[in-house]
């Protein structure tokens, strides 16, 4: 019988909880269902009979027994067990909950132990290897892969295999790190070894090292093979992780890390297998194993870290004996690891520490990204002085450099190449020899923060007014790193120093005022369009105003450095009022120190080198100072009272 009845309805009817309507409907249902009617009738009978059960009187002595019990307890002072005021079901529920909680805790602890055992490679190694790895083998880095038997170097490889099992891991580390460095960077430290590295899959450092340790500690062949296979599979898996993290980074350290770990991991794993397959007998048969095994490992020493021709990619010199520290540092996955390596070797290996710090500092500085400001500015100075004062100015620069720790790299002289006016503007002095005035370049290596002092020095001593103006978009590609930038500047400086002066010899000194007038006219013709151009250039408004106001006192030259054979790296502007002589004509100064300091004009407002060139005060820069030689008669070159020369780069 599949019929089901509404329990609530039946119970409500029995207990009298139904409303009259519900009672009527239920009774109608009872009239239709005889079985339900019979059931309800019997249930009602049972209920009524149960309610009519007589109350059984308590025994008359019950209260007396209670009193006696109370008196006995009072006399004995014994406390009865705690009253049971909670429902038994509740007590048992609590007990069940406690039991379940205990069972759950037990399962969790057991599961954690199992997971820990499965995950921890050390425990795995202990479980699978009959001979656990010794401490020395744990920290040993296995040698490079053994070459094929009979091939050159087989004996050495065998001996290295022997070393793996006999010598301490510390000695092998030094030797192996050298080999690894050679493999990675080439013996000459060339950059050609890098491209293939980027294509290599990368090991995860902890996994790979752990695999190496396990492989080195495994004696049996099968165990070694298993571990090597495991390490390789982990490497494939983790390579994707590292690649994903690198995200196509061009940082050579990422690639170097990956390559180092890859080479170490594969070499060590394969060598562990080879070592297990080729016991020490093979190495002993080679005849040189004992000699090599007895040979002491090379003592760590520093030969330095060199940079390759490719800027921004430092290389470890191939035969650096202390390369292990550098190697470890390069393999450090994060700054904390690198710091830990430094701390670990600081006491025991001061040479390695020095190498590591040098390496770290170089890498950090060279890989520091440049501010990718499209308006990157490069300071350089252009002066226009008379030929008679040029040497004095140069001497003054040298003196200042010697006194302030700067360095004068090169002094070159060339013909007029740097003073071309952008946009095909007419050359200076088209009708005279001034159209081709020679240019002398003095390259000064100094801190960026020293540029302004140098300018003040020139202004004060040489009667010039030199400053640095904002530059528009540079004409050469921006360097990605400061290392690149530094390298490019040095190349420019070297090119400038090595390039012979071109063009005709300096023109003869003008001897007439007519020529001076021609020169001034030329200057004026150049200054006006340049002043108009300057108004369009941010930060040059003040210069343009000055040029418009008194073109005889301040003439502004703007040059596109792209058109210069000497300096291809940027633009500059030069002001030269040192020889502008107001109404009395120009005249060169009578020599350094002879000009009146009061004639020096202040640089244009806001010409701050550091803020406009995105350089830091401590940045080492190569500052080219281009001295335009004007062949002005010394007799006529009387320094005007308030007409200093101004060099304003753009």
């Amino acid at each position, binding site marked *: 019988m599949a019929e089901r009845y509404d329990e609530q309805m039946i119970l409500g009817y029995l*207990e009298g909880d139904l409303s009259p309507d519900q009672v009527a409907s239920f009774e109608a249902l009872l009239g239709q269902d005889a*079985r339900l009617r*019979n059931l309800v009738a019997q249930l009602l009978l049972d*209920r009524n009979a149960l309610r*009519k059960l007589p109350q*059984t009187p308590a025994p008359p002595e019950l209260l007396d027994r*209670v009193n006696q019990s*109370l008196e006995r307890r009072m006399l004995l002072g014994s406390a009865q067990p705690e009253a049971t005021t909670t*429902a038994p079901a509740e007590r048992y529920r609590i007990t069940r909950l406690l039991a379940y909680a205990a069972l759950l805790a037990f399962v969790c602890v057991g599961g954690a132990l199992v997971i820990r055992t499965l995950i921890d490679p050390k425990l795995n190694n202990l479980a699978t290897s009959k001979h656990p790895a010794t401490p020395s083998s744990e920290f040993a880095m296995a040698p490079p892969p053994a070459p094929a038997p009979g091939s050159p170097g087989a004996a050495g490889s065998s001996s290295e295999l022997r070393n793996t099992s006999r010598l301490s891991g510390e000695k092998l580390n030094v030797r192996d790190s050298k080999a690894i460095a050679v493999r990675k960077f080439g013996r000459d430290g060339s950059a050609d070894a890098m491209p293939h590295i980027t294509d290599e899959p990368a090991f995860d450092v902890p996994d790979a090292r752990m695999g190496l340790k396990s492989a080195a500690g495994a004696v049996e062949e099968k165990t070694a093979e298993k571990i090597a296979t495991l390490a390789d599979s982990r490497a494939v898996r983790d390579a994707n992780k590292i690649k994903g993290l690198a995200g196509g980074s061009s940082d050579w350290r990422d690639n170097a890390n990956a390559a180092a770990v890859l080479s170490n991991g594969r070499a060590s794993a394969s060598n562990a297998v080879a070592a297990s397959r080729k016991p020490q007998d093979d190495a002993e048969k080679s005849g040189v194993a004992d000699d090599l095994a007895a040979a002491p490992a090379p003592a760590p020493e520093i030969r330095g870290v060199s940079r390759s021709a490719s800027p921004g990619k430092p290389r470890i010199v191939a035969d650096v004996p202390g390369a292990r520290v550098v190697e470890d540092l390069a393999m450090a996955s994060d700054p904390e690891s690198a710091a830990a390596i430094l701390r670990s070797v600081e006491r025991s290996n001061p040479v390695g520490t020095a190498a590591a710090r040098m390496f770290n500092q170089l890498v950090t500085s060279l890989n520091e990204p440049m501010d990718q400001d499209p308006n990157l500015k490069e300071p350089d100075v252009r002066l226009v002085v008379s030929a008679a004062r040029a040497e004095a100015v140069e001497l003054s620069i040298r003196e200042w450099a010697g006194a302030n720790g700067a360095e004068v790299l090169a002094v070159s002289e060339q013909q007029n190449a740097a003073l071309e006016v952008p946009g095909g503007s007419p050359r200076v002095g088209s009708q005279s020899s001034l159209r081709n005035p020679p240019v002398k370049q003095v390259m000064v290596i100094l801190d960026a923060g020293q540029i302004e002092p140098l300018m003040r020095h020139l202004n004060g001593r040489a009667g010039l007014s030199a400053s640095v103006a904002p530059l528009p978009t540079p004409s050469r590609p921006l360097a990605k790193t400061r290392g690149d930038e530094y390298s490019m500047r040095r190349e420019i400086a070297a090119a400038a120093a090595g390039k012979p002066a071109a063009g005709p010899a300096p023109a003869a000194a003008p001897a007439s005022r007519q020529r001076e007038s021609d020169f001034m006219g030329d200057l004026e013709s150049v200054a006006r369009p340049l002043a108009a151009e300057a108004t369009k250039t941010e930060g040059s408004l003040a210069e343009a105003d000055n040029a418009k106001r008194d073109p005889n006192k301040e003439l502004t030259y703007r040059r596109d450095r792209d058109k210069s054979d000497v300096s291809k790296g940027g633009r500059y502007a030069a002001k030269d009022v040192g020889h502008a002589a107001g109404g009395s004509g120009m005249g060169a100064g009578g020599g350094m120190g002879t000009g009146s300091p009061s004639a020096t004009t202040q640089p244009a407002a806001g010409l701050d080198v550091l803020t406009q060139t995105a350089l830091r005060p401590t940045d080492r820069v190569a500052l080219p100072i281009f001295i335009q030689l004007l062949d002005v008669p010394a007799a006529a070159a009387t320094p005007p009272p308030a007409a200093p020369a101004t060099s304003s780069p753009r």
Partner: protein
Amino acid sequence: MAQPSEPPAIEAVMRGDAGALGRLLEFHQHRLYNVCYRMLGHRDDAAEVAQEAMLKIVEHIHDFNGQSEITTWMVRIAMNLSISHLRKRKLRHTTSLDSGGGGDPDDQSTALRHELKDHREPSPGSSVEQQETAAQLQVALARIEEDFRSILILRDLEGMDYQHIADVLALPVGTVKSRLFRARLALRHEMLRLNPPPASAPPDGVAKEVGHG
């Protein structure tokens, strides 16, 4: 001992009036004993458990917080002690002397059968049929599960409403209702076992089906 006509004021009991507490126990002694007797089905056990319940009441009367009626609280203690006694008896697997040594020690109806014989003696105030029915009900009540028994006792013998039953048994009211219906069906099923219908009558399996439905 004459039973007091009305219970003493609970305030007097809570103030530590020993006389009031004595009167309270005297007023409720039969009720407590009946609860224990219907639950245990044995007079001596019922007297023992009722005595223990009274002692607990005396000892913990100051723990009564007044959230429920004092009667409910006392019945709850008696009911809990009875259930604990039943479970201890099951664990001990002792053989009741009343069972004659041949019956199931867990069968609560063994002692009731003897009582059933006693009740078969006709009394002036009751018919033989009523006495037979009462005896069968007691036997059937002893056979059903203690959870069902307790709820039937509280509902039909003690006349408690759902809320009081829920307070005594520490159950939700909905559970009380559901369990009460199943208890009635279980009782009906046991009654049918004790008094099977005639062979000519159609089998009545409704109670069992509903009980399992």
